[in-house]
């Protein structure tokens, strides 16, 4: 319990740092962000919203500590201000509308990559130096080095534009009405194939490499040698003895790599015009929508912290030492 409390304390501190960062950046940069936004937005914003925007940044005529407390107050009550790009909507509404698509993309792709990458890693480590390993391991390392941006662009061109196998943008065909009809769900699935597969591909290499290295390190352990000496059959030794323990580092790194996956999803969404956080944010960036850009940092941080908390709970269940501590 003490372990969990300490972790939660840490997460609150981390969130506070992200919020403080958001508070400080506009104050440290030259120029007034509100003026810049008004210049960019042209006539789209009514003059009354100037005051509202100033309030969003806490840029009122008050001493700095008071501004800071006021800002923290609005962040912790989850009042993120007004969006400039999507004008009548608040940042909160814009983000909540986009978040489910990003979560769907990230979770599906991560599950796919985790399963395929771990299995490939197990296989490569077990037959180390074999045909699969000597092609697969360097290929996985190189795959890790290919930016998500490049994978998405290549996939978009090959399967979307040149071969025309799959739709190139949006989450469903625009003519359909959203609902639980088989037609609509089929369209969602077809539109998800390219983003999900490219996002999975960008993570795949990492899982293969981690699993392979962790498994190779374990294969030298005495209990594996003993298992071989006892005459356990290959499959059992590989899966129940070696792979099971070798998977622990992969599971714990899962939460830590999630930040990178969110970043990757951001890029994938921009390339495929997929209506998640990344694409919304992209529109925000081109319109210099500062409240939205700041809001996404808080939402992404919150998502990371939640994932880490979940990983803590899993570790707590797997590792009895943590429960006693």
């Amino acid at each position: 319990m003490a372990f969990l409390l300490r972790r939660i304390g840490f997460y609150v501190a981390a969130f506070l740092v992200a919020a403080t960062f958001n508070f400080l950046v506009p104050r440290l940069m030259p120029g007034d962000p509100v003026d810049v936004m008004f210049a960019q937005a042209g006539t789209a914003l009514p003059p009354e919203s100037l005051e509202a925007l100033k309030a969003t940044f806490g840029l009122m005529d008050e001493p700095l500590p008071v501004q800071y407390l006021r800002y923290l107050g609005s962040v912790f009550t989850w009042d993120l201000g007004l969006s400039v790009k999507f004008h009548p909507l608040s940042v909160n509404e814009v983000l909540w509308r986009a978040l489910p698509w990003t979560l769907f993309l990230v979770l599906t792709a991560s599950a796919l990559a985790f399963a395929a990458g771990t299995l490939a890693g197990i296989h490569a480590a077990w037959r180390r130096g074999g045909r699969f390993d000597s092609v697969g391991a360097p290929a996985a390392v190189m795959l890790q080095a290919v930016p998500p941006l490049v994978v998405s662009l290549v996939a978009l061109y090959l399967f979307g534009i040149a071969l025309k196998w799959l739709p190139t943008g949006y989450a469903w065909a625009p003519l359909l009405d959203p609902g639980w009809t088989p037609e609509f769900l089929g369209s969602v699935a077809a539109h998800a194939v390219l983003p999900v597969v490219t996002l999975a591909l960008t993570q795949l290499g990492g899982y293969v490499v981690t699993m392979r290295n962790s498994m190779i390190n374990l294969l030298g352990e005495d209990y594996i040698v003993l298992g071989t000496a006892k005459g356990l059959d290959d499959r059992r030794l590989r899966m129940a003895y070696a792979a099971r323990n070798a998977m622990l580092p992969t599971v714990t790194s899962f939460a830590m790599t999630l930040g990178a996956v969110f970043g990757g999803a951001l890029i994938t969404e921009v390339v495929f015009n997929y209506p998640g956080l990344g694409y919304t944010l992209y529109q925000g960036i081109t319109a210099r929508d500062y409240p939205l850009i700041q809001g996404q940092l808080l939402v992404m941080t919150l998502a990371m912290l939640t994932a880490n908390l979940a990983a803590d709970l899993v570790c707590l269940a797997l590792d009895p030492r943590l429960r006693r501590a």
Partner: protein
Amino acid sequence: MRSFLTALRGNPKAAVGAVIVAIFLAVALLAPVLAPAGPNQRVARPHEAPSAEHVMGSTRMGRDVLSQTIHGTRTSLAVGLAAGALVTVLGVAVGITAGYFGGRVDEGLSLLTNIVLVIPNLPLMLVLAAFIGQAGPLVIAGIIGFTSWGWGARVVRAQTLSLRERDFVRAAELLGEPAWRVIGSELLPNLVSLVGLNFIGSVLYAVITEATLEFLGLGDPLIVSWGTMLYHAQATSALQVGAWWEMAAPCLALILFGSGLSLMNFALDEVANPRLRTLKVPPALLAAVRARGAGREAA
């Protein structure tokens, strides 16, 4: 350094990687000589397909894609090396300080490191870059450097903690060596392969991240780099109108340079962690060797 060169000779993966990286460095240095045209010179009709005259075709603005890619190599590599060096220096400094001094210092720095690690990187950089507005290459390198040192610090700290308890470090301390000498001449030399791994990985990360930030429109669009090339291609819907070559050249450069670096890292990893080397050693022998090694460490 010598172990690195030996690794290159004995390891074809590393040799291929090093050759690729060396070629890119040469292209960056010799860009004005190698490129058939200036980066912003309009030498062709818009969106000309690859031909003998323009090997990688031309952009929407009639610029030679190959020349842009060659000139862009300079910017992209410069940002990668600068940001990679910054990430490595910060990570090593924080990691060694935390690991060596321990106690309060370690607690404070570890907390800082963990917070940096848990706040997602790209969203953080987006906020910074957006407020700076049209960030030039140097600024982008700074943004990447100051936000991405967490992993390096964590790894270096862990290794420092284990080195710290070794006899030779204890001996140096008992001799009354000051902290900076213990760190500089006892700890750092033993961290070289780790620092090297960290640097190569950071350069790769920085090159990719720069391209990503610029693609998203946060860079300075007047500067020619792989990222801004992709940004302009996206802005002019190059793929949709069939001008795939405008995207293909910077993508290819990113893939090739990335593969070169990661092949080098793969080999360096094998130097640092001998168990990853592909040897046909029976597991029992490996276990025996390991047991002896562990016994020696404990003694």
